[in-house]
């Protein structure tokens, strides 16, 4: 089942002269893990924002072409964890539980989801810590846990391993593969081609806001 579909989509940020995405067509289904790569300014972050439904709803701009998002529970993770904290929680547990609580899910469901997500992201030992006191790598794993606590059917991630050490980065990509195998659609933009290639089901190479290669990770990311 297709969870995101773009057909001839272009996106121009508010105030920009040229589109950041041009005439892009994409379809991502449940269980797929799509790696997005390209040189700086290729449009991978913009593609994540558009595919996740955040642009132009939250990020101002103009979207043309067709977009269909069937996903009911999208979640997003950026490379900079400190800007993704709610600023309202004094413990990791509260931070992770914030998303499902905001959706009004029953208390017991929220707590179970938060605990499972903390275990998945291996931050359960940090649950009582103040997020502001964590290292960049720990914080990034907390943000990943916060996204997973939403039990997303569509997960978009922008360079999610930027703050992680090599072992934690390996663990993150293994986790993404497991989440995709459990039925979520995942789009991940990353320069970490060696790590993403073995876990991705498909890869796209972007340049200048256009897809220039789309296919098997081993071919596209080689």
């Amino acid at each position, binding site marked *: 089942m297709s969870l995101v579909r773009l057909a001839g989509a272009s996106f121009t940020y508010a105030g920009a002269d040229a589109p950041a995405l041009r005439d892009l067509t994409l379809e991502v289904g449940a269980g797929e893990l799509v790696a997005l790569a390209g040189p700086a300014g290729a449009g991978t972050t913009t593609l994540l924002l558009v595919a996740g439904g955040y642009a132009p709803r939250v990020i101002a701009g103009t979207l043309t072409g067709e977009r269909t998002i069937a996903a009911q529970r*999208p979640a997003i993770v950026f490379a900079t964890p400190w800007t993704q904290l709610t600023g309202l929680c004094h413990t990791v547990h509260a931070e992770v539980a914030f*998303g499902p609580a905001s959706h009004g899910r029953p208390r017991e469901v929220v707590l179970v989801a938060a605990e499972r997500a903390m275990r998945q992201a291996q931050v359960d030992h940090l649950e009582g810590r103040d997020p502001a006191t964590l290292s960049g790598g720990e914080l990034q794993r907390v943000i990943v846990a916060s996204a997973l606590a939403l039990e997303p059917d569509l997960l978009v991630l922008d360079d999610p391993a930027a703050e992680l050490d090599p072992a934690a980065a390996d663990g993150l990509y293994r986790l993404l593969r497991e989440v995709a195998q459990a039925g979520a659609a995942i789009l991940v933009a990353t320069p970490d081609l060696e790590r993403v290639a073995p876990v991705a089901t498909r890869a796209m190479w972007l340049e200048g806001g256009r897809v220039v290669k789309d296919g098997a990770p081993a071919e596209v990311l080689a």
Partner: protein
Amino acid sequence: MIGYVPGTSPLHRAHPYTPLAAAGAVLLSAFAVTTPASVGVIVLAAIALALVGGVLGRVARPAFVIALPTWLLLLVLHGLLGPEPFGLLGGVRISEPGFTRALVLGGRLTAILVAFLTVLAVVSPARLVEAMTARGVPFARMYLLVSTLTLVPRLRARAGQILEAQQCRGLALGGSPVARVAALGPLVLPLVLGALVEVDEQVLALDARGVTSGARRTSLDPPPDRAAERALRAGMAVVVIALFAARFAGAGL
């Protein structure tokens, strides 16, 4: 030190609405009374609040630093340049009604500052969020209040990081007053621009966490609101109303 200070005082353990109500009562009472003696009592009440919260030492310095310039200005404007009759205080000719006015205004400011700095120090933003969530307060209102309460510590932390980074790049902070003011540019500009950039990403992060879902947020750990605290808050409201009633009845408080 401005911002939350973890602790176990009665105010820390209280429902977050109780210290907020106390500070609100201090603010309103300060405007209900008009004589230096009565304002002095309100100042003492604010100091007592800080003492009960165990944070008087923490709030005294920022309260003094913020209030002092205003006190000086009030004493000069009203005390020296006020209307007749004039008297002598320590050999200085001062306006008696002006001096009284300065005491009242300065006292009000001091009481309000001490009370609200105490609230900042004893109310955990996380507990306040839980308390407001339990009452069904819309997220936008809750975020506006809590982010305002946490603004100073967050800006302070960021300013510290920028300061260290700029000093590593050779920014000198010492020297003449002019040099010190000139050094503010490389600090303030990144502070403001950085905060603006972060706002965009935080809006996105909050949206992704469902704050715009329209659902009523689930309260996970609502702080208990005991009957005694509810009665205390009602008592504060009664006192404030009584003070205003006395003022408008011409009681001369």
